[in-house]
């Protein structure tokens, strides 16, 4: 079935078709499911209502991440909605024999951070989660996508989902990142250009020498943000970097099985003569640090730029949308982006909370102080990341600079726990969405890279991190 001319996506798809349903639709087999507390209670409830059991409990891992407290000194109040939701996940997992990782366990963290850490995420597998940033796992050459709660229920009971085959788009990133520029900047620049619908209907494969040079963590940031360009699936072909990351992880194959698996994984990359429905090429060496100024991730610009003027927009519907975004963000057209003062800084989320992200932020924070009046927090993506950062002394650097150092969770990426913005507060955030109210009702979010967020914490305004580097030099 996989002779010549096939894309990575086609190979992943073909290997999981249980039954073709015509019209590009098929019932796909799902190998892995990450279960979190927010999208699962109704799925478990539905299963119980139909008196069904899990088909394969060990194809699932459950953990609470969205609603957990990241402040050990202030756990969720006992009968808060958050605590009830976490409690429900524990009960449901126990009842159905689903492997469960608790809030205080060494393997705990955001689902999209721990899946790869545990080796649960593997090349060539299909992986779903009731969360749109499931695209993250495509960094391993896994067919991974977000689903709704009823689909979670369907996977519980059948390990299958009907899906329609996506068109394919290859995005080639060539060249080398300049100093001070992160993969987050590249992907924000991409979304600014192709828009929040640019990838709609496509499975995107990232290729090119810049992608080959990326670490697994960078590839995860890239695939994570793919959903913000409208594509549910972002893929990177597995290579030696992928295998080196996975080797020895608890759920990765061992011994002879490992060799067998790697041999199979090497057959997955798109064939040289594979055809894509659409293809784009970007030179990443020209990319500079980006920040968002609006209320969707495509509304971002180089930090050296200015808040755009709706009057200059010819299309009336776009003009209206732009004015509305600026009104919500309380920004005047023409303002220099680096004149925008901030109240809060959030470094975390499944986009940018891994060890390399924290190192990049610490490099900026080291020996400096968080600006007076700014409250800044660092939330590692997992307990493992936290432990690693502490072993490297990053927590000390952050604490000395005046950041608050937290434990793992989604935290202020989503206003579903105690970490949130107050109305009107403005935040420099490494998360993925700047929608109205995303970080708390009335809160204003500027998304950017970890180094850029750290720089904003230091100066109290949106800042080109390259200026701080010059200052230190």
């Amino acid at each position, binding site marked *: 079935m996989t002779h010549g001319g096939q894309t990575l996506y086609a190979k992943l798809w073909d290997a999981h078709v*249980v*039954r073709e349903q015509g*019209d590009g*639709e098929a*019932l796909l*087999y799902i190998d892995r499911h990450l279960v979190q507390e*927010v*999208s699962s*209670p*109704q799925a478990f409830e539905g299963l119980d209502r139909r008196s069904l059991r899990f*088909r394969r*409990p*060990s*194809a699932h*891992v459950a953990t609470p991440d969205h609603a957990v407290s990241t402040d050990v000194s202030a756990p969720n109040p006992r009968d808060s*909605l958050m605590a009830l*939701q976490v409690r*429900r996940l*524990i009960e449901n997992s*126990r*009842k159905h024999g*689903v*492997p*469960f*990782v608790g809030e205080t*366990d*060494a393997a705990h963290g955001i689902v999209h951070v721990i899946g790869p850490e545990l080796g649960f995420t*593997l090349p*060539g*597998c299909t992986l779903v989660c*009731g*969360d*749109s940033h499931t695209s993250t796992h495509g960094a391993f050459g896994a067919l991974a996508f*977000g689903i*709704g*709660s*009823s*689909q979670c*229920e*369907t996977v519980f*009971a*059948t*390990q*299958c989902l*009907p899906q329609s085959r996506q068109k394919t788009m290859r995005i080639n990133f060539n060249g080398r990142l300049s100093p001070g520029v992160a993969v987050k900047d590249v992907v924000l620049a991409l979304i600014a250009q192709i828009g*929040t*619908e640019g990838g*709609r209907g496509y499975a995107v494969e990232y290729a090119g020498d810049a992608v080959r040079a990326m670490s697994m963590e960078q590839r995860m940031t890239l695939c994570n943000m793919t959903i913000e360009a*409208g594509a*549910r699936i972002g893929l990177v072909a597995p290579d030696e970097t992928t295998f080196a990351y996975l080797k020895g992880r*608890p*759920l*990765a194959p061992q011994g002879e*099985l490992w060799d*067998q698996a790697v041999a199979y994984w090497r057959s997955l990359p798109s064939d040289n003569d594979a055809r894509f429905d659409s293809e784009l090429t970007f030179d990443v060496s020209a990319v500079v640090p980006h920040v968002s100024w609006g209320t969707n991730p495509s509304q971002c610009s180089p930090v050296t730029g200015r808040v755009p003027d709706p009057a200059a927009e010819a299309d009336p519907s776009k003009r209206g949308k732009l004015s509305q975004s600026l009104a919500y963000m309380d920004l005047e057209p023409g303002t220099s982006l680096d004149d925008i003062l901030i109240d809060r800084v959030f470094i975390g989320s499944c986009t940018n909370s891994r060890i390399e992200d924290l190192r990049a932020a610490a490099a900026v924070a080291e020996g400096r102080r968080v600006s007076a009046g700014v409250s800044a927090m660092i939330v590692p993506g997992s307990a493992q990341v936290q432990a690693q950062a502490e072993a490297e002394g990053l927590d000390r650097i952050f604490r000395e600079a005046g950041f608050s150092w937290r434990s793992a969770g989604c935290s202020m990426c989503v*206003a579903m726990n105690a970490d949130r913005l107050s109305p009107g507060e403005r935040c420099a955030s490494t998360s993925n969405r700047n*929608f*109205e*109210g*995303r970080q708390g009702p009335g809160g204003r979010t500027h998304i950017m890279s970890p180094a850029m967020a750290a720089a904003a914490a230091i100066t109290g305004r949106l800042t080109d991190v390259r200026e701080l580097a010059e200052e230190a030099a």
Partner: protein
Amino acid sequence: MIPFHTLTSRAIPLPAADIDTDAILPARFLLLLSREGLGEHLFHELRRNAQFALNRPDLAGAQIIVGGPRFGIGSSREQAVWALADYGIRCIIAPSFGEIFYANCINNGILPITLEGEPYEGVLDAADASVEFHIDLTAQTIDIGKRSPITFGIDASRRDALLSGRDTLDTILHDDMEHIARFEAQQQDAEPWLWIDETQFAPFASIGGDND
């Protein structure tokens, strides 16, 4: 899930672009554990504005929304669709939809109709003017009292699911359990490493039993 055949109702015009699932149901309501009662929180923020179309007295009880481009983008939360269903919405007409949202609609008995250009403008005007819509899924038509009804397209499999009221899970349980067993046997042979043994979880996760 309630089958969808025909629907007669007025329609609520919400033509703004990019109404995302967070606007439909803000994240903090995701902490509620059940599907029932979510309609109360539908469009929680937007609804505070008296001018918001959902508040129009002439549209009280309307079961159709005429949305704008990219209706339902953003977070995959199915709660957004449950809130719409719980509020009584049975059909959404828009130029385009968030993909996950679209699938969630089908699975919850809400008919999403993709309509662009002139037909869309006509429908939007009719919604604004509080005209009664008659939607027929078998005929794939929207009748707003004009010369000829507007026709719309929808995948046959999705249309059938809505007409039968059989959701995805029912359908798979009914049609596919043998296919699944066969697939699994093959995969266990070809890619045995995908089959994690329960014992591999022991070092870091708990399975069943007491974990208080």
